[in-house]
């Protein structure tokens, strides 16, 4: 394969090309600026046809740090190129660098919109979209035209359809064009179509007569005629579909794709003690972890066994451990906790004074502990021992993870855990488990939060495009008003008992990753008439969302969010971008049947857990969270 590519030379390159849309494996490169190349075999020696491909390469080699473990990926045709592009960078660099390649023979359609070019391979999903930042892309298109048999689509002159040059269709098409004397631009044919769109009734009679002439003039009902006929019919019916009539003004209206009907997912009873106990083997190992998680997802955990179950859910106890292993683990972990606690406890006053980073954290923890859940009996009153524990666990966490330290919001995450578990070392390790799940929320640069709020908007836009559009036109597309929801997983919005139920449901990782964002979508959708009906602007939306605190029906929201998940999963127009966020298997351009890869299908199927995992979460290796986590790790070392 490499051999085959070494004969290529670049016959065109243009820089300042931004990658706007691409297969999911290129998501880290979205909005990166790069160079577009056209590569071609040097000569046609007659033994094989000339081969050409397009390549887009990001400019900045440092961007690959996020994806250095990923392999090269090629759209449609996976091939490695041994030829280096320029200079003498170490070979390592090329292994890290990603480039997006498209073989010329795979390009079936190219759509141009302003400075954007979108490439299609025949399926409805684009291969990629490139934005030509420095001026227009006419030269590039002209070049494409010389190498590919491109003709503008009859429906839209900005869409270029690639025909196989040898095919009878193309030759027939050329003939037809010649016979009708239709030029791609500004011909009477295009003007006619333009008129139909702009003045449907005035133009349509005249247009139809021409169309019928055009259609019926074809001598033979060959493929191209069917194609043309289809295109025309589609074009006309689209015009019909899209026009709303209102007093002589015609407005083009785009119908968003419909989601499948939403199903109800009523919440179930919490996991009972008998169900839980029955799952343990004689050596204290859990037998069917998946069905336990399923039950927890469906109804939470009975308060009676909650303490033990949380230790599993928060990765303190490994799911596959025996009782003896857990007992040994606890002894070691308790010791480790007290060792770390001793470290900060034994600081002298002088040490503290010379260690401002530490002193600052200590001071902020003290302040925040004094204002965490003080309305609850557990933390009420002065000199409450539980406040001391809250303080000590957070201080020990500072020693455990000094790079992160203490960030506001962490005391909210610890409070319910400590309230349930009480025992300081155990609560600490459960808190560590929770922090590991949410650590990107506390990035220094807040990248994890920005990613999540961005993902929230993307999901909302897919589920409720009207509301998303409304927010966008009211300067709310940044979703800042959901910051508190996402940062501490609705801790400030729910009563403590509901928080516990909500978190244990989310900790199962079912039915998909980032399920908390779907809960946020469900709430926003629930409030949509309030937000849009009152014509709320940015400040009113913020105020309204803030005031939802303690007025949310958690069960209803979980029910709706699960319904939304299945709507998304079963949507025909589901994109890889959405799949990526919720952790569904990505389809790319090869796989067309997503359904066979998804196992998490219905509540019934959930309960009857057997051989394969019911959740596809584990199948996608990189979540947005993990990417930003990597980022935060790296920035810590810089």
């Amino acid at each position, binding site marked *: 394969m490499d051999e085959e590519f070494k004969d290529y030379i670049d016959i065109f390159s243009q820089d300042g090309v931004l990658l706007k849309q691409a297969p999911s494996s290129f998501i880290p490169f979205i909005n990166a600026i790069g160079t577009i190349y056209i590569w071609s075999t040097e000569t046609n020696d007659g033994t094989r046809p000339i081969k050409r491909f397009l390549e887009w390469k990001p400019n900045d080699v440092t961007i690959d740090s996020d994806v250095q473990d990923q392999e090269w990926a090629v759209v449609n045709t996976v091939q490695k190129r041994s030829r280096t592009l320029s200079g003498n960078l170490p070979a390592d660099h090329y292994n890290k660098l990603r480039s997006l390649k498209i073989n010329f023979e795979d390009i079936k359609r190219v759509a141009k919109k302003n400075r954007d070019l979108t490439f299609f391979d025949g399926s409805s999903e684009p291969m990629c979209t490139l934005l030509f930042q420095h001026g227009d892309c006419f030269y590039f298109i002209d070049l494409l035209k010389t190498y590919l048999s491109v003709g503008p689509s009859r429906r839209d002159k900005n869409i270029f359809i690639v025909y196989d040059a040898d095919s009878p269709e193309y030759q027939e098409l050329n003939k037809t064009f010649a016979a009708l004397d239709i030029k791609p631009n500004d011909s009477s044919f295009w003007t006619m179509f333009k008129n139909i769109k702009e003045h449907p009734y005035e133009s349509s009679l005249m247009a139809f007569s021409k169309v019928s002439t055009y259609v019926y003039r074809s001598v033979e009902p060959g493929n191209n005629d069917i194609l043309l006929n289809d295109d025309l019919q589609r074009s006309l019916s689209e015009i019909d579909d899209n026009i709303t009539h209102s007093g002589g003004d015609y407005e083009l209206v785009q119908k968003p794709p419909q989601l499948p009907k939403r199903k109800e997912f009523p919440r179930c009873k919490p996991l009972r003690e008998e169900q839980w106990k029955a799952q343990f083997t004689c050596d204290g190992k859990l037998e069917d972890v998946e069905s336990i998680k399923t039950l927890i997802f469906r109804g939470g955990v009975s308060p009676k066994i909650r303490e033990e179950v949380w230790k599993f859910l928060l990765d303190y106890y490994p799911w596959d451990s025996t009782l003896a292993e857990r007992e040994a683990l606890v002894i070691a972990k308790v010791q480790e906790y007290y060792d770390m606690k001793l470290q900060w406890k034994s600081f002298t006053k002088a040490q503290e004074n010379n260690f401002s980073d530490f002193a*600052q954290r200590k*001071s*902020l923890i003290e*302040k*925040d502990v*004094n*204002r*965490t859940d*003080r*309305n609850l009996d557990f933390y009420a009153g002065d000199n409450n021992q539980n406040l001391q524990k809250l303080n000590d666990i957070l201080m020990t966490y500072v020693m455990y993870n000094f790079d992160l330290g203490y*960030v*506001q*919001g962490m005391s*909210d995450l610890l409070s319910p855990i400590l309230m349930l578990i009480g025992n300081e070392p155990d609560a600490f390790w459960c808190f560590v488990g929770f922090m590991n799940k949410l650590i990107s929320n*506390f990035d*220094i*640069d*807040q990248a994890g*939060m*920005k990613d999540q709020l961005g993902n929230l908007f993307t999901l909302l836009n897919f589920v409720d495009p009207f509301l998303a559009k409304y927010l966008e036109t009211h300067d709310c597309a*940044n979703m*800042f*008003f959901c*910051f*508190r929801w996402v*940062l*501490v997983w609705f801790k*400030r919005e729910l009563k403590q008992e509901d928080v516990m139920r909500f978190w244990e449901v989310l900790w199962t990782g079912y039915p998909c990753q980032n399920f908390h964002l779907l809960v946020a979508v469900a709430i926003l959708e629930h409030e949509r008439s309030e937000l849009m009906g*009152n014509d709320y602007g940015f*400040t*009113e939306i*913020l*105020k309204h969302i*803030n005031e939802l605190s303690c007025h949310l029906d958690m069960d209803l929201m979980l029910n709706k969010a699960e319904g939304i998940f299945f709507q998304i999963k079963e949507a025909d127009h589901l994109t890889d971008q959405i799949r990526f966020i919720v952790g569904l298997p990505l389809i790319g351009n090869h796989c067309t049947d997503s359904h066979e890869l998804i196992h998490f299908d219905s509540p019934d199927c959930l309960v009857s857990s057997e051989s394969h995992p019911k959740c596809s979460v584990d199948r996608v290796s990189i979540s947005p969270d993990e990417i930003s986590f990597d980022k935060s790790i790296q920035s810590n070392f810089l």
Partner: protein
Amino acid sequence: MRSTTKNPLLKVVILGDGGVGKSCLMNRFVSNQFDEHSFHTIGVEFLNKDLDIDGQTYTLQIWDTAGQERFKTLRTPFYRGSDICMLTYAIDDKTSFKNLELWRKEFTYYADLKENNQIPFLVVGNKSDVPREEREVSQLEMETWCNENGITSCIETSAKNASNVQEAFKMAVQHWLRLESRADKNETATNDTVDLSKKYGDNRMSCCVGGSEESSN
């Protein structure tokens, strides 16, 4: 806001380190309540409150933000369009006083003020209720810092015992009014016009000139 009245709306941003009492000042002013153990703010919150000054009612839209450095990217977008900025510290916390400089810079940078617009800062030293021996910042220090930074309004408050809280917000609005009237006058001023507002301090005053006759007493 859904403005049922046509009162002038003033956007007030309260800034300062975590735990100096920003939310408590807001809650005391707006609803005359105080909860020592109220939650620390996550994200951004705001409340509205009407305030009468010289027969004119102003609606104050008071913005309260999370004080930790880490949440800077979240709070700074809210600085735009502010009319008043309250720089807040706690008198029993020297560090929070030292950090006023950082808050002033952060606000100035992100508030996107129009040229020649003097920033209506008010410095607030909260927790004046703490016992004398716990005080870490004297009133003189506050006034000196204000002089050095060309800030003409400062006040010590206690959200806990409601001391000076109403006064602080009133002072902020009065300060804003003075700047507004001066801005108006500057626009129409001719060379022979005497600017009476100058006695309140000059926005082009050089750093070595004191001008703190406004400071609280």
